């Protein structure tokens, strides 16, 4: 018996680990950036963050900081953390989680103070930043949740953009015809499901490569909505484009909660779609990691054959998840035409579907992670549009690149390791 005990540890972990220097290098580069940009090129003025809106019940005083002072402080902390990361890597091969996390927060604060300190107005409402960000964040969250649903079950979803666009178009058309925003919302979900039907049909039934199907579906939906937009929505009756007058979903503030500084206006003065999003993020997280449904879905995405051998119908699970994802993304698409903007325009999703894909990856295929990534990308996107008006030291185009650049860093292993479900993209063929 003693012999077999030995055989159970065939691999000997070794302290002399093979080190990955990616993280210390990245942090070092960023710390250097902080020194050069925040300190040496830092603006001399102050940055004012308005926390409350005028309409708020509780007024919180503005936060005024010296841009240069914060810049120096941020640079010092960044250097210290980069050094710590280097030391930890050298000594143990591992970096404590809090180091990277703190670095990120500190760096982002420094970046925002630097940007805002440098603007001509030097006065940006923090609330405005977040509420504006929600306009971008909301569809990204829905899109990435669509991705979570299908990719956790092993179907790569590149067609998020198409699902969002189909939802936006259908919501506008149906709510224009019926005059009901809810009919539009429902129809948008159906439209998203229809895109998913094609995705499921071709990638699961006909085993076409899932990336190809996704790419092609995006082109198909773009062409189809563009064609119908020209043919139907541009038709004018009495000078009005009657098929492009969608009803509007109003914001419904939640009493008390909506009065919390920053969080209230951001999360609790939303339309019904926004509240649905909050519920969905939590529900999906709970569902995936705490329920029987989630265990089975994840098994299908990780090791479909193992799932099959315990009696789980792999392809049915996949189809159901892809369809559910379509409905979710369709509702996210409806947000464009029923909440954010009051009419449909050609290709109006403008690549947010791909940012949703980025959020999905950056959020590690986890609903909450994806939602946080979507929030980050939303803030960056909103900052970009605010700054294009305000005139800043940094061009808005660089902020526009942020989500994409971060995603590339994530998939290259510079910021942790983004590992997809093991069977993501592999068709399951049963003999």
């Amino acid at each position: 018996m003693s012999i077999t005990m030995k055989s159970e540890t065939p691999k000997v972990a070794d302290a002399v680990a093979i080190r990955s220097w990616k993280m210390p290098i990245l942090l070092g580069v960023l710390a250097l950036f902080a020194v050069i940009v925040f300190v040496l090129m830092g603006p001399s003025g102050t940055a004012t963050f308005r926390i409350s809106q005028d309409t708020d019940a509780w007024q919180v005083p503005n936060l005024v900081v010296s841009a240069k002072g914060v810049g120096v402080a941020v640079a010092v902390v960044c250097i210290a953390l980069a050094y710590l990361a280097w030391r930890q890597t050298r000594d143990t091969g591992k970096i404590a989680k809090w180091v990277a996390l703190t670095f990120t927060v500190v760096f982002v604060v420094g970046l925002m103070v630097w940007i805002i300190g440098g603007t001509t107005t030097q006065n940006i409402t923090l609330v405005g930043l977040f509420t504006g960000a929600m306009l971008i964040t909301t569809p990204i969250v829905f899109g990435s949740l669509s991705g979570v649903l299908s990719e956790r079950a092993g179907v790569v979803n590149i067609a998020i953009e198409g699902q969002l666009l189909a939802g936006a178009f259908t919501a506008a058309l149906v709510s224009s015809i019926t005059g009901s925003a809810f009919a539009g919302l429902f129809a948008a979900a159906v439209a998203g499901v229809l895109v998913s039907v094609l995705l499921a049909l071709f990638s699961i039934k006909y085993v076409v490569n899932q990336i190809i199907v996704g790419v092609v579906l995006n082109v198909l939906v773009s062409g189809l909505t563009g064609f119908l937009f020209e043919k139907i929505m541009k038709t004018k009756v009495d000078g009005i484009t009657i098929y492009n007058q969608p009803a509007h979903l109003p914001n419904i503030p939640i009493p008390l909660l909506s009065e919390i500084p920053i969080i209230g206006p951001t999360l609790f003065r939303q339309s019904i779609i926004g509240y649905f999003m909050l519920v969905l993020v939590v529900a999906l997280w709970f569902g995936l990691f705490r329920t029987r449904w989630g265990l089975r879905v994840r098994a299908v995405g990780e090791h479909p054959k193992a799932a099959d051998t315990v009696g789980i119908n792999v392809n049915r699970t996949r189809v159901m998840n892809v369809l559910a994802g379509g409905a979710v993304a369709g509702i996210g698409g409806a947000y464009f035409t029923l909440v954010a903007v009051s009419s449909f325009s050609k290709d109006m999703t403008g690549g947010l579907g791909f940012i949703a894909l980025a959020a999905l990856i950056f959020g590690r295929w986890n609903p909450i992670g994806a939602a946080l990534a979507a929030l980050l990308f939303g803030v960056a996107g909103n900052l970009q549009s605010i700054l294009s008006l305000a005139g800043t030291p940094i061009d808005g185009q660089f902020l526009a690149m942020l989500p994409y650049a971060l995603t590339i860093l994530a998939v290259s292993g510079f910021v942790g390791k983004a590992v997809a479900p093991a069977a993501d993209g592999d068709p399951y063929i049963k003999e």
Partner: protein
Amino acid sequence: MKLELRGITKSFGSLVANDHIDLVVESGEIHSLLGENGAGKSTLMNVLYGLYEPTSGEILVDDKPVKFSGPADAMAAGIGMVHQHFMLVPVFTVAENVALGAESTSLGGVLNLAETRRKIRDISDRFGFDVDPDALVEDLPVGVQQRVEIIKALVRNSKILILDEPTAVLTPQETDELMDIMGQLRDGGTSIVFISHKLREVKAVSDTITVIRRGKVVGSAPPDTPTTELAAMMVGRAVNLTLDKADATPGEETFKVTNLTVMNDAGQRLLDDVTLSVSQGEILAVAGVQGNGQTELTEAVLGLHKHVLGSITLDGQELVGRTVRQVLDSGVGFVPEDRQDDGLVGELSIAENLVLDLYTKAPYSRAGTLNKAYIAKNAVDKVAEFDVRAQSPLDAADTLSGGNQQKVVLARELARPLKLFIASQPTRGVDVGSIEFLHKRIVAERDSGTPVVIVSTELDEVLELADRIAVLFAGKLMGIVPGKSSRELLGLMMAGLPADEAQEQLLAQGGPGTPGATSESTSEGEPS
């Protein structure tokens, strides 16, 4: 529970994998299904388990016909299966894997794993499994993973347990333990179907043996049937179980491995301070249970590993730090352990595969342009020389059978004058006829004066080919022993005892395995 298969036929296109198979497994017996690789054993069990739908025939459980449209039906009928390739989700815990598909839940489908953990502990205690329900499966050694598979079946109250080639990943001692467990289960009333191509194990554990060849049942036999008779049934002709091989005439020691350590990206030592050398005209076989560093040893020689410490020299030239191309160019012939993954490009033609590592050299190419005429002519020659059964050398390599694919790899690697020949698992999944051919070519290469390294997890193959045997365990060299060492000695070494301790232990037991002598079972031999 009694299980009966009547006239089961399963065909894939024009290939008939199972041809009117009849089989009766009585309640509480261990019934072995013996057959070569590809004889149709696993297909039959997949039919029985509801993974494949039979083309015709019926399955009866306790004399009542049943129809399985999926594994769920089979499990409901009390059939459990331990697959050859484990059906476990690596990123799940043991409890999650065991629960999967039969989860206990509280209100609203919320998982309740406490119940599953309790069941795992019960079974674990009963059979002495020592399995932690909360360990991640990917962190467990294969032996423990196999127990998790058995627990999975038992938790589902399986009355019939199918074990598909369960010993392939086990040490001889672990195999013995598994056989004990099988005995306990049988005594508890469980019927067991044991699938194997290893005669020794089948004879040791079975109550009844059914032999399958080419998808057909060729007969049944009691476990005391002589090995040679079983082998003949399995292969379909009398088999020459031993290779005619002259003794080695070792020359100069030209291949030396010194203090070789190989680490993975996480810094774990997959090969730990190994030193050995091979002489010209000698075959060194590296034995061990799969996953104990053999793969890393051969791959390190070829230059496939990043984190290598120590030295590998061939004719005095250092190989560590060289690219694969440079190593091959210095005269190393290399047969990788998995021909489909590493040895061949299935989509390319046989002709192209025959020049897969030669294409940069004249006359196969000149000035960056392939000489297609010469490549075609080369293919015709090699196909004839190595007796590759192909319709045309221009067919894709993945249209060939395993044995013929292996011949293509060998033909390519032996095409050049070699200073070292390394072959991993040279006959895995290959039919007996091809095995004989491949073994002869390997011995011929030795006799031409090349140092040869063979890595095999099949003890039979090791004993057949080796002039000396090196045993690896957990990345460490347990020692190098003569080619005619006993199975018992090798088994102890494979389980982690250094050669000298293993010999002492055998002497203390007074067992049959007098060190250095050929044991009874060896001379009997077995095809693999």
